[in-house]
């Protein structure tokens, strides 16, 4: 239990940036969604870490993490449904090709 908080924070940060890098670079929409999931988890990890290190008393950290997980799950479900319908229309999930909203 001797792991200092900074490690966890850095871990969270690194994971978040990995997720961000994935979201930025990957061409495939699903890969982007996965990267976003990674970013979500990094954030949730931070919640629990903060709960564990700072406010051990009230369980709000865990509760919040729990709700965050639920929301993330819902989000990924809807996201993937969107990706599927987009695929059906565009015949490809390449993020670059989805530029119908171009200015």
């Amino acid at each position, binding site marked *: 239990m001797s792991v200092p908080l900074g490690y966890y924070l850095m871990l969270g940060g690194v994971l978040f940036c990995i997720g961000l890098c994935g979201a930025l670079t*990957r061409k495939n929409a699903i890969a982007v969604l996965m990267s976003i999931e990674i970013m979500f988890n990094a954030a949730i990890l931070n919640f629990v870490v903060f709960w*564990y290190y700072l406010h051990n008393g009230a369980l709000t950290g865990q509760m919040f993490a729990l709700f965050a997980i639920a929301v993330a799950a819902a989000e990924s479900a809807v996201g993937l449904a969107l990706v599927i319908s987009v695929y059906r229309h565009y015949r490809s999930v390449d993020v670059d090709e989805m530029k119908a909203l171009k200015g």
Partner: protein
Amino acid sequence: MNIVFLTLSAIMVLGAVLAVTLRNLVHCLLALVVFFLGIAGHFFLLKADFLGAAQILIYIGAVAVLILFAIMLTRNISGTEGGRSSLGGAWWLGVGLASSLAGMMCVFVRRSELVTKLPYGATEEGVVKEIGKLLVTDWVVPLEIMAVLLTAALIGAVVIALEEEKKR
């Protein structure tokens, strides 16, 4: 604990990196599952075992499968990317930004005074019961809203994915 923390986070980081860089999406997914397991592991380490179980149940059980289904539905069965590079257009810009952000975060963490904070006292058992109680008492409103949100998401996902099917 250091060792466990280090190995676990190493695995996790490796999983995340692989999930981001691998060409074959299914392999990415597996890496992602490893990452999720890493996160669950960390939850267990941090004595949030209900969350760990929930994480496993939700992410690995449901989301991973969902993503699998998505992968399979949107591309030819072979699952490979078809030779094209998986990276998008200006990939170097993304990587550069992410790495600079990461560096900056680490610098901030290092400078902030929280870095050396150590956890105090072990938590008592029965966290799960506590969570149950809290859910139904203090957090009942978010719970209900969450219920509504989840049903809405469920129906929305079905409608979006299914809609096209019927019309054609």
